[in-house]
């Protein structure tokens, strides 16, 4: 009996995995640009996870004997004005970028989705008040709101995550609310209500799973923006603080000062930012086309 159950669950797992594999393969075949983006994203994730193994040097280790060295077999991407290895800092920088990017877009999109669905579900006055507040937050350009949050909380990794999350919330809430409005009077929501389920159970178990497509679209669209915003904040000196390895921070100060003598300091971190945001944008675009039939071009 136990064996059978094990077999069945294994079969289920295999068929489930195969389903995922099929979907991924079809995505790769039909949307090659998106798949290319996904591969770059995966490479970045591996680099971030295995940073301890693949980075040739400690990203924080200063070596004043090797300041501003050019590209060599010892330092593939050269060294910075403290003699730190640029390649190692780039690899560890992907950790900072991905951690801040993923956590702030996940937090922002999820909070926005819950607010959007709740606002649509309750309707009436709640909806009106929530929408006015979201409109208020939307009247700040993205970076301005993030900078104000930094002004309140100060710099540092956690504060930067909050600063990037806050402006994402109203943007997601707006989109999710409009998809959730049509769910409000569907039979399954009415049935759930008739069964006497609590509001939050209906919102989380019945409505939220049905706005997954716009949620995923917003989430992936935020990823690139979040990484770019983190880089901008760090570049301005209002993001993560030294000596953490972060791409935006690497472009700050010394990179411009020594631009003529050591252009690699300015070129590689910018390439890393652009490539990763580019990859996330490509992937997000293709995902949106795949998930949103309305946007499909015949």
């Amino acid at each position, binding site marked *: 009996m136990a064996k059978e159950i094990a077999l069945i669950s294994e079969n289920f797992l295999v068929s489930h995995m195969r389903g995922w594999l099929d979907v991924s393969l079809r995505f790769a075949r039909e949307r090659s640009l998106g798949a290319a983006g996904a591969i770059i994203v995966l490479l970045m994730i591996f680099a971030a996870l295995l940073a301890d193994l693949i980075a040739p040097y400690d990203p924080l280790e200063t070596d004043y004997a090797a300041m501003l060295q050019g590209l060599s077999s010892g330092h593939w991407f050269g060294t910075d004005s403290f003699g730190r290895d640029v390649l190692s800092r780039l690899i560890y920088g992907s950790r900072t970028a991905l951690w801040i990017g993923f956590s702030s877009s996940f937090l922002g999109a999820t909070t926005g989705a819950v607010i959007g669905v709740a606002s649509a579900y309750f309707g009436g006055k709640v909806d009106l008040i929530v929408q006015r507040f979201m409109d208020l937050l939307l*009247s700040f350009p993205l970076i301005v709101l993030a900078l104000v949050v930094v002004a309140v909380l100060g710099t540092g990794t956690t504060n930067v995550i909050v600063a990037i999350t806050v402006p994402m919330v109203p943007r997601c809430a707006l989109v999710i609310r409009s998809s959730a409005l049509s769910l409000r009077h569907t039979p399954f929501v009415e049935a759930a209500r008739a069964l006497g389920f609590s509001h939050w159970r209906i919102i989380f178990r019945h409505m939220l799973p049905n706005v997954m497509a716009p949620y995923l679209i917003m989430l992936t669209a935020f990823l690139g923006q979040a990484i770019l915003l983190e880089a901008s904040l760090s570049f301005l000196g209002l993001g993560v603080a030294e000596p953490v390895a972060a791409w935006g921070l690497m472009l700050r100060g010394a990179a*411009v000062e020594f631009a003529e003598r050591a252009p690699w300091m300015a070129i590689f971190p910018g390439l890393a930012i652009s490539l990763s945001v580019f990859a996330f944008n490509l992937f997000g675009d293709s995902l949106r086309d795949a998930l949103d039939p309305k946007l499909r071009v015949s």
Partner: protein
Amino acid sequence: MHRYILKRLLLMIPTLLGVAVLVFLMLRVAPGDIVELRYAGTGTYAPKEALDLERAQLGLDKPLWHQFVTWIWGIARLDFGNSMWTGQPVIHEIAIRLELSLQLALMATIVAIFLSIPLGTLAALKQDTWVDYFVRVFSIAGLSVPSFWLGILIILGFLIIFQWLPPLTFTSFWVDPKANLTQMIWPALAVGYRYSAVATRMTRSAVLEVLREDYIRTARAKGLWERVVLVRHALKNAMLPVITIIGLEFAFLVGGLVVTEQVFNLNGIGMLFVESIAQRDYMIVQTLVLLISFVFIFVNFLVDLINACLDPRIRYQ
């Protein structure tokens, strides 16, 4: 129409008031104020009395509602208070930098329009050819490349190839147009490229959509020149969503200004904003946020108006 304009203008007041309350409260709950920061900078020990005296001079000892009412009442009389750092009137600090930032914003918008409309149209006309792919990759790249890095690359290129740097001191356009433009065109390009990205994509899809319309087929069927079909019939109708997106993407422009002014060492509004945040200069930060939000809301309002003028089908109530 006049009633609609008036209503929209009046509706801005509660929104801006909301923005003012929000920013004011956010900045005041921040731990550590400008007085502590200033004394921390000097490194000397400051007795509590000295700190309190300083706070009293800046009006920070008053209750929150009192500070807020003073600030708003001042704004109503166009008195924006004094910078907490330099003691200069806020309006003066902003005024001396406004020309530079406005010019940069205007030039970046022009760059964006001149990049996005031709490229987007071209991509639509050559749909699914290498031209189309190139334009699409070019525009996605524009969204991905940080404008500050593009700025750094421009400077780097000039330094290495020509051993030349754009001038660092700002010359007004009215004083010496040539010197002014040699300085301002590079940051405008860096900001404008990014700004153009979304508009290019919007132009492409709008033109594609319009080209499938019946009236385009009619225009072609009656033997009009392709150029007339394109410019008079297609582009004119495709421009509506493009104008909308250029207005909505105004946020990108602000973001671009903030970081690009830093790269090119331009003492504009963006730099003032970043400095004031680092120095906790509440008066300047809250006034600037209010100003930026006002411009943002106003631009969106203008976009709605332009759309209504261009498209007789849109009639506002």
